[in-house]
């Protein structure tokens, strides 16, 4: 199939960006969206032009590296699918496709379709862990964990940190990401001792960088891993409780 691409090109973080038009010709419908871009880039390189820079690595939907807005949708038209797992059979011959980087104040554009998502790491660094030194752990089966709790923690932990939730949110809020990380740890017995500290710290860093949540729910729809917004409600409850405990302690 043949396609026309309108791609955001931006030379650097403080350079102005613009859309450029490229023709993608002879694209196999079996190829992935990123392989289609590889093909376009190969043509650009042969002509001595700079290829379109984009983020990717595993191309299996698990590392969370890839991500772009495709026709205004985070990760494109197929539900529960990362950009790297999107295949060209979702498009038709002659289509025009608009490709942009994640658009959010918390994710500055670095070049073309590459953005800086380090704010996610800062949220985790502020408290997204259980403090246990290597070698100090008790036997793994000493504390039984109800299967349903473990499974729910796993549902939250399935987040790949791609940032689609933030990109899809009209406010550029990071509630879904932060709440998934919190729920993963706060649902487990091991996570209880630091539950309040963790919640306050992570929500604090989140609010410094990202927009606020007004319950659009776009994040859940865009999430390639189907992370539920129920975790946001849980985070809000935990946060209120933690604030109260803190005030009482003070």
């Amino acid at each position: 199939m043949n396609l026309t691409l309108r791609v955001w090109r931006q030379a650097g973080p403080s350079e102005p960006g613009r859309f450029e038009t490229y023709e993608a010709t002879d694209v196999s419908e079996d190829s992935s969206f990123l392989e289609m871009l590889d093909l376009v880039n190969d043509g650009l390189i042969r002509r001595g032009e700079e290829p379109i820079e984009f983020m990717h690595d595993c191309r299996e939907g698990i590392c969370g590296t890839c991500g772009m807005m495709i026709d205004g949708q985070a990760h494109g038209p197929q539900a529960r699918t990362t950009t790297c797992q999107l295949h060209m059979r979702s498009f038709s011959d002659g289509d025009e496709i608009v490709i942009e980087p994640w658009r959010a104040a918390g994710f500055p554009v670095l070049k073309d379709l590459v953005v800086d998502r380090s704010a996610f790491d800062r949220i985790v660094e502020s408290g997204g862990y259980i403090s246990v030194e290597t070698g100090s752990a008790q036997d793994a089966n000493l504390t039984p964990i109800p299967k349903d709790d473990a499974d729910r923690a796993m549902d939250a932990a399935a987040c790949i940190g791609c940032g689609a939730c933030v990109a899809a949110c009209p406010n550029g809020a990071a509630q879904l990401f932060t709440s998934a990380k919190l729920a993963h740890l706060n649902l487990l017995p091991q996570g209880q001792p630091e539950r309040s500290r963790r919640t306050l710290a992570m929500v604090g860093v989140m609010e410094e960088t990202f927009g606020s949540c007004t319950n659009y729910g776009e994040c859940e729809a865009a999430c390639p891993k189907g992370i539920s917004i129920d975790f946001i409600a849980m985070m809000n409850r935990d946060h209120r409780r933690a604030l109260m405990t803190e005030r009482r302690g003070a």
Partner: protein
Amino acid sequence: MTVLDARIPSGPIERKWSDHRFDMRLVSPANKRKFSIIVVGTGLGGASAAATLGELGYRVKAFTFHDSARRAHSIAAQGGINAAKNYHGDGDSVYRLFYDTVKGGDFRSREANVYRLAEVSNNIIDQCVAQGVPFAREYGGLLDNRSFGGAQVSRTFYAKGQTGQQLLLGAYQALSRQVKERTVELHTNMEMLDLVVVDGRAVGIVTRDLRTGEIASHAADAVVLATGGYSNAFYLSTNAMACNTSAIWRAHRRGAMFANPCYTQIHPTAIPASDEFQSKLTLMSESLRNDGRIWVPTDADEARSAADIPEDARDYFLERRYPAFGNLSPRDISSRAAKERVDAGFGVGPLKNGVYLDFSEAIGRLGRDAIAAKYGNLFDMYQRITGEDPYLAPMRIYPAPHYTMGGLWVDYELQTTIPGLFAIGEANFSDHGANRLGASALMQGLADGYFVLPATIGNYLAPMLGRPKVDTTASEFAQVEADVRARVDRFLGSRGTRSVDWFHRELGRIVWDHCGMSRTKEGLEKALSEIPALRAEFESDVRVPGSGDTINSSLEKAGRVEDFFELAELMCRDALVREESCGGHFREEHQTADGEALRDDVNFAHVTAWEWSGDSAAPVEHREQLEYENVEMATRSYK
């Protein structure tokens, strides 16, 4: 040729590690702050090591070229992680895990290392659960296990189909905690481009910032490489796109010996390439072979769709050739049998590059729902990638490069042949011999990072206390930086007509054809003449557009592919001198009458470690003799 000494502690195998831990010199808590350690890589090996070293009080600098420590290739591991917990009382033990691993490695691994691995496996599970890794559980709340190939017990712990992801997040969280505590300085988007050696010791690295292009030097008292495997020498593999050999290859060029480069693992069930521009191969779990039947048409010109081909026009070649094991024949046998059929022209699919994995009989027998319950997520993934519905038509599969057992040679303490340089995880060669068992790579990465290296590195550092430190003003740093700059400038000055990816793909084709699933003297020699020829074309005709002071993926790839060229030659050379078949290394000249691998324990029960001797000289071969004092060497038999 010299004989390498792995410095294995004496004494009975069950006591070696505990005795050695006691014998090693210690660095006191207050003195640990005086030592700095560079850890390159933040996958399972690197993140666990950096976090633990930070907890111990060392000053750690960790580097990754990824934009976050959480994105390392380890994230993609699906199946699980082994440990000898014997939670299910089915007779598992440290000794059994040790035995299975030595046998699975086809008697080409080091007994003492494998025993230690089995010994610490249980601590790994304890540690991970304490960190909040949500392993699968039974209704009673205890941990669940599954079985994996090469074992007769249930010892594999898993978190859905995302075990690697959950283990890496655990290590990443531990690392994040140390970043907050400021014991670890984490550098993301930073690629190590070379190693710096002063007076024979590793003292630092030179990096390029992938966003700004800045080239910088970093000094430390020791350097740890945890940079993963090199399956992408084949171009198409199940590894992530950015996996590469450069860190260990550059260390090799600076004096670290490279062990067993020809030991590569080909996984039998991946989705075949759909066209020339395919960029990677996706793994389909081996468990599918429990219910799927593998076949190709008996007529090479068969034009009917699978469902219309009658039984008598189908060749169930595994069932035909290996009636006892059939579709569950071991990985290497199944892979080679599929290759034989495809090479003979019987392949299926538009490119005739696959074989059928057919569930119609199982669906008829057990019902669609039963099959969906077992394999639903895999069927969905297959459909997303190929656009075909495996409930209606058979899957098409083909073997794919997956894991590399070879890597930097390390001694018992995980130190390379350069003092002060350590290698852990898939980057070293140590524990899997000629073939790795499923669910053992995650175990090894975390054993190295959480438990082994943090103990052994003190033995190297302790005597250095009070000695003068080398810093980045040493002239060697300036020299290495100049080398790195010259190389970057050379790539940016290229004015050729073809992309780096084009060359990588062509290189991969040569390596796959001649140093892949089966190897011959003739083929390897052919590869050894084709690789330098292609390399010469690469040097004259590659095109790296753009500049060096910004994100430039072509530039990043150019250095990695150039290193793959050199490694590929060494892989072929190693495969050529190993005149036997063992594990993942199959030399057609060395097989039994019925096509089984024929090992030669008299002449080849050794590790081959290669020493770099310059751009224009052939590498020098060294050996480490392998002694089997606890497990009797036997022929692996599947009949």
